[in-house]
């Protein structure tokens, strides 16, 4: 019998020990327990650095303001549909299957990248004061058809961002580089494109100030926005309503081809 080589891959995630487990570079019981929150653990899991409980509180606040869970909104609605046969777990797979680059959580990647691009331009052009930075932003945005982190539907301002700004200010995190940069982008977007910033803009600023990159920001955001899905999947799976399993006929508009015969049915082939 031919010998099988031992297959092996490197990992920095974890090793389960007899008396102590290791997780992302830290001993779990003697290094993490009591010094980090659940949100902090999420951040570590995405490859981010260990933040203090106080710092991660701002991400907890972000999760709170993102609890816009109205089941009529497209994203939570998918959890309602997916839970209609009574299965919570099935519904909880949908946020990951329907991530959008244009709507909701998926726009965080593009928004973070946008702030990083602007930051690079600011450094290259050695812009030092806000007025010089705003000129760079204005020029950058003028070349973009679609600006991420700006724009809302159905309301004049994003009430979530208004609340989140207060939270960031209260924790004195509003003087950091990327938070200030997103404030300037929001100001220019409002003035020149008549677009209000949305919560994703604020989230991008905080994530970048905490050292997350594009991918890590997306991964963390996907978990922060789970609350609306959980609530809808929970109630939806309890209701398991027949009207969602199959909508009544009168709610369907048929827009397909008119009835016709196939060439085989007509004996033409």
């Amino acid at each position, binding site marked *: 019998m031919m010998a099988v080589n031992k297959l092996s891959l490197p990992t920095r995630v974890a090793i389960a020990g007899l008396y*102590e487990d290791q997780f992302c570079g830290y001993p779990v019981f003697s290094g993490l327990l009591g010094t980090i929150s659940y949100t902090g653990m999420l951040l570590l899991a995405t490859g981010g650095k260990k933040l203090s409980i106080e710092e991660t509180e701002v991400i907890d606040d972000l999760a709170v303001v993102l609890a816009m869970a109205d089941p009529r909104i497209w994203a939570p609605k998918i959890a309602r*549909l997916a839970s209609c046969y009574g299965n919570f777990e099935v519904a909880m797979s949908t946020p990951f299957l329907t*991530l959008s680059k244009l709507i909701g959580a998926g726009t965080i990647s593009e928004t973070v990248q946008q702030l990083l691009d602007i930051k690079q331009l600011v450094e290259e052009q050695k812009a030092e004061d806000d007025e010089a930075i705003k000129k760079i932003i204005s020029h950058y945005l003028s070349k973009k058809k679609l600006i991420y982190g700006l724009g809302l539907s159905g309301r004049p301002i994003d009430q979530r961002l208004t609340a989140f700004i207060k939270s960031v200010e209260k924790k004195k995190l509003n003087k950091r580089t990327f938070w200030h940069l997103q404030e300037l982008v929001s100001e220019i977007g409002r003035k020149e494109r008549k677009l209000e910033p949305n919560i994703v803009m604020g989230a991008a600023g905080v994530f970048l100030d905490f050292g997350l990159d594009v991918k890590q920001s997306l991964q963390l955001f996907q978990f922060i926005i789970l609350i609306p899905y959980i609530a809808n999947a929970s109630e939806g799976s309890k209701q398991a309503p027949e009207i969602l*399993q199959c909508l009544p006929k009168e709610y*369907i508009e048929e827009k397909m081809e008119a009835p016709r015969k196939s060439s085989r049915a007509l004996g033409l082939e």
Partner: protein
Amino acid sequence: MAIPEGIFDNFPSPDKLDARVISLSPDPAIHGYSVFSDLALHYNFSEMIYLTLTGKTPTRQIGQAFEYALKFLFPITAAEAPSNAGILAMVLAGAPASVLGTTGVLLVDMARYWVEKHKALLSWLDSPDATFPEQYQNKDIENKKIVLQLSEIISQIGISCPIFEHDPTLIAALIAVLHACGLKKPEQIQAVIVFAKYPCAIAEGYATTPYDCNSYPMRVPDYKYQQGEI
């Protein structure tokens, strides 16, 4: 700091993954039958599905009945949750892969739900001398015509299916046909429902304009908020 030995470094565990159905040869064999030099030449696609699920090649009779069962199971409308979710997935994510994934997950759960709802039918099919469970009796006139059509096809093929004497619903009749073909396990029936309906379910999502949120009826159904815990 040195990392101590982990629990799973020496945990008893096999060195190989077991493959029980499909061989790894350049001409893969399914349950021993070569795909390229045997099955592809002598069996149609649905018969290959049958073999994969049961381990047996179907007779021509069984193959035909199974093919008809798949065809009758084939449609699923936009009204039903898997297709509805496929449409919403395209609206939200704008990506065919999202439609495939979301629709697939919902179809699997719908099939699980249907098979669970037909548990008593499966017991009756195993012992058809018992009283026929009345919840599977057809009350829809339109449906009765289709069941009659299926009954005639299955009878012409020469497969015995006593359920047709009991005026069953279409889904009950189709489960009975699958059972008569030798697919008696709930997981086999669940899989067949998923395979049969998947093309129609994804087609509605694929026909939807990506990101066209305004075209999706957000208040169907409408939700009225009430204070209190869930």
